[in-house]
């Protein structure tokens, strides 16, 4: 058993981070200049980390497989970013953000990490404003907020429906400044394919230059992974097409541990799948649940008529609609957390009340909000006795102002006008709470290897609250890693520049080259894409919104068979010595085929339901998730082994929060 020491500082929860920063070992400026840091990934976490460590004076090498750091998938985040500013005077505080996050994560995250996240959340907003991020404003010029699921305060800052884009551009601009100053050396179109360890410490990476196909060696005193999540193991997800687990997975194969891989977030509001050719799913921001009401027809015959195209949502009388979230969860209504909303949609669709041809869809309806806003706007404008048409016109204008680009995107994809007909939505894979195991320093069990943002497992427990991914990525990158890399690097000030001539580099390069040759030499008949689709179907069917022992065991067998078939019949066209997107994809799918198995094993091991992990054997009489705190209050950290991956455990200690049954009723 590996001893997983979380290295949580002593002292009261609210003082831990302050005390840590006051007492940690610093690296003097003259030594920073001599130390090299590799950052892999340029999303919110990676770009923020590379920029900030560049500012501090470290020599940073930063890598992305994209053509530009600005393309990282953080860019697609829509709704917003949380911060405990309490600008709305509605009772928010650092403690409340901490508590909401712990509770939202179903008591499966580490208290100290989450509290630190809540503390630095406030600095992120200040930093982003200073960089020129155009957050939404009130008429008085101050910052605006809105609400997100699972909380009862308004603490979400936003930039129309493009918050991720604007925050990423802010980080990208800071990174660009450090590149221009020579503090960060940027390597675009370079994909990390192996981690290099020397004397047990992370000292470099092997990256493939995606333009030439050449493998290149890069050395540093430490390596920081900010490479995102593994949602694309499901093939269909809201992740970008190229998002993958490869960098993190190759680190796992070098001894890092994959923690809580079964915690995947299924987002309740995505545009339903329309056909077999579909390549990805598109999210409709959770912010829409501020004003949208979720419903299905009460009568099954109405649902069937809608499925067959004989009726539309607007044809169903008010009394014949089942606003099932408002019915089941009166306290939070349409703003219950994502895992709860997703499962509730599945329950209705499984009962046959779905409203798209596949049966897998529910309505998200803005008619009530249009009425409410329309009446309010008429009143503001001094229009007495406004006509019904006028109310709708004014109401739609308010909705357009708030969610215009989302409505436009919906119409482009679905071909339907969401102002006139309720949106059709269904849950889809969106985010992965699991990730590389890290301690309080965000350092993995491999000394000198750090993991940030979605790539680590640390802050969201078994379920992430909306608008918290951007917060965590930027917290890790701007305000945590620049400090927590100190304890490791302060011990390295006498270490000479690491040489890429070391035998460990040669061995890692050969290992990578062998794998690429193996992929090219299978010369089978089936495309990489076809394997990925089949893997996704297995994962969604047996390790998706609901899981059970029998299905998981079956799925494990299926994945192992699929993996064997992949390695004996995959076809990778082109050559390895050129720009070859099919070869890139092949390597990533090979890793997903292993990652998927670990997810299944983790789901099997966890004999309870919590957050995004719902085991059908463990539910209350009302069908709600049933945790087992006595036996499962731990982080499961998996060590890879081709035949039998092994689990290591970090027991979670709750000193400040009482473990309760999570209720949103």
């Amino acid at each position, binding site marked *: 058993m590996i001893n997983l020491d979380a290295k949580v500082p002593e002292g009261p929860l609210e003082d831990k981070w302050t005390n840590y920063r006051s007492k940690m070992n610093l690296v003097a400026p003259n030594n920073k200049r001599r130390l090299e840091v590799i950052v892999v990934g340029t999303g919110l976490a990676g770009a923020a980390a590379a920029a900030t460590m560049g500012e501090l004076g470290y020599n940073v090498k930063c890598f992305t497989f994209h053509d530009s750091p600005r393309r990282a998938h953080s860019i697609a985040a829509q709704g917003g970013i949380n911060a405990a*500013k309490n600008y709305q005077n509605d009772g928010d505080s650092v403690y409340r953000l901490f508590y909401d996050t712990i509770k939202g994560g179903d008591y499966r995250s580490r208290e100290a990490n989450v509290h630190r996240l809540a503390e630095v959340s406030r*600095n992120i907003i200040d930093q982003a404003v200073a960089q*020129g991020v155009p957050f939404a404003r009130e008429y008085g010029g101050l910052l605006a907020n809105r609400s997100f699921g699972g909380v009862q305060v308004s603490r979400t800052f936003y930039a129309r429906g493009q918050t991720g884009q604007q925050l990423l551009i802010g980080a990208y601009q800071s990174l660009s400044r450090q590149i221009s100053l020579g503090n960060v050396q940027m390597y*675009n179109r370079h994909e990390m394919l192996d981690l290099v360890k020397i004397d047990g410490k992370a000292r470099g990476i092997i990256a493939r230059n995606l333009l030439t196909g050449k493998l290149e060696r890069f050395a540093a005193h430490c390596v920081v992974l900010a490479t995102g999540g593994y949602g694309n193991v499901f093939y269909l997800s809201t992740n*970008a097409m190229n998002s993958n687990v490869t960098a993190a997975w190759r680190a796992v194969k070098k001894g890092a541990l994959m923690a809580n891989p079964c915690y995947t977030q299924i987002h309740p509001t995505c545009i339903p799948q329309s*056909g077999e050719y579909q390549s990805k799913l598109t999210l409709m921001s959770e912010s829409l649940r501020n004003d949208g009401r979720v419903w299905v027809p009460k009568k099954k015959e109405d649902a069937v008529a809608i499925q067959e195209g004989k009726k539309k949502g607007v044809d169903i009388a008010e009394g014949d609609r089942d606003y099932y979230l408002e019915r089941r969860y009166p306290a939070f209504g349409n703003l219950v957390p994502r895992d709860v909303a997703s499962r509730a949609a599945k329950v209705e669709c499984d009962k046959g009340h779905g409203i798209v041809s596949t049966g897998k869809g529910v309505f998200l309806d803005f008619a009530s909000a249009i009425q409410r806003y329309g009446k309010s706007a008429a009143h503001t404008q001094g229009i007495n006795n406004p006509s019904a048409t006028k109310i709708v016109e004014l109401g739609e204008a308010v909705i357009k102002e708030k969610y215009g680009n989302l409505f436009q*995107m919906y119409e482009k994809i679905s071909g339907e006008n969401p102002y006139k007909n309720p949106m059709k939505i269904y849950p889809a894979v969106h985010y992965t709470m699991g990730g590389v195991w890290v301690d309080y320093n965000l350092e993995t069990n491999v000394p000198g290897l750090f993991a940030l943002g979605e790539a680590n497992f640390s802050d969201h427990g078994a379920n992430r609250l909306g608008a918290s991914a951007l917060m965590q990525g930027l917290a890790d990158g701007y305000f945590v890693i620049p400090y927590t890399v100190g304890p490791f690097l302060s011990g390295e000030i006498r270490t000479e520049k690491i040489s890429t001539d070391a035998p460990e580099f040669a061995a890692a390069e050969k290992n990578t080259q062998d794998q690429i040759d193996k992929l090219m030499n299978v010369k089978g008949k089936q495309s990489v894409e076809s394997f990925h689709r089949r893997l996704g179907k297995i994962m969604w069917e047996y390790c998706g919104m609901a899981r059970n022992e029998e299905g998981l065991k079956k799925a494990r067998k299926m994945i192992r068979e699929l993996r064997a078939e992949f390695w004996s019949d995959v076809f990778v066209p082109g050559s390895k010595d050129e*720009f070859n997107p099919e070869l890139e994809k092949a390597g990533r799918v090979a890793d997903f085929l292993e990652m998927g198995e670990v997810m299944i094993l983790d789901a099997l091991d966890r004999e309870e339901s919590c957050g995004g992990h719902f085991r059908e054997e463990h539910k209350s009489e009302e069908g709600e998730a049933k945790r087992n705190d006595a036996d499962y209050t731990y982080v499961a950290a998996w060590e890879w082994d081709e035949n039998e991956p092994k689990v290591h455990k970090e027991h979670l200690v709750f000193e400040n929060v009482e473990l309760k049954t999570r209720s949103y009723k």
Partner: protein
Amino acid sequence: MNLTLKVWRQKGANVKGALETYQVKANEHMSFLEMLDVLNEDLISQGKEPVAFAHDCREGICGTCNLVIDGRPHGPQQGTTVCQLHMRAFKDGQTIVVEPWRAAAFPIIKDLVVDRSSFDAIIQAGGFISVNTGQAQDGNAIPIEKDTASLAFDAATCIGCGACVAACPNGSAMLFTSAKVSHLALMPQGKVEHEKRVQKMVAQMDLEGFGNCSNTGACEVECPKEISISNIARLNRSYVGSVLSSD
């Protein structure tokens, strides 16, 4: 629907390319890129090399996709990236010509994939506010009038795809550059180093081999984020002003 595609194939930067013809079966619910996926799966099943094209988020926000369809960057639909363009915009039996961005500053890498690192170089030259992490004051200490913030936002929606350059007969990057200049200049945080920023970014733009702007307005028409050409006027005013005022 049955389509005839004429797709630009080019092995590498220094090799001559040509249009090749393919037949593909699609349906109107597919996105344009999903239609290309179908073509590629078909090519792979015949043991042939698929068409290389750039794409990632497929939600119209990352700015990666870059196809010229029947002569128009991002295709026929206003305010839409290729990944958000659906086949219902085309007719059964139609012939569609698919090419990459064409501009001196965007060399072709392979088939439909081009190199846009010149855009990164323009941002690195000055497209930022010089503030280190941790130096910021409270966010609400910098109030910004709502309409001004909104105007800055309109400029900030640029996704860096390069359609403006591809649309421009001169291959100019003025819309891209001016959008960043405007975004930062309109906000009080960005005003401080505004003049230096304009000069450096314009100089870098010229260095990268982008052409001059002759106000044809093609960029504004093809921009998937509908960024206004008035940003170019704003840049020109600032640039002239900054040159006159600097020593």
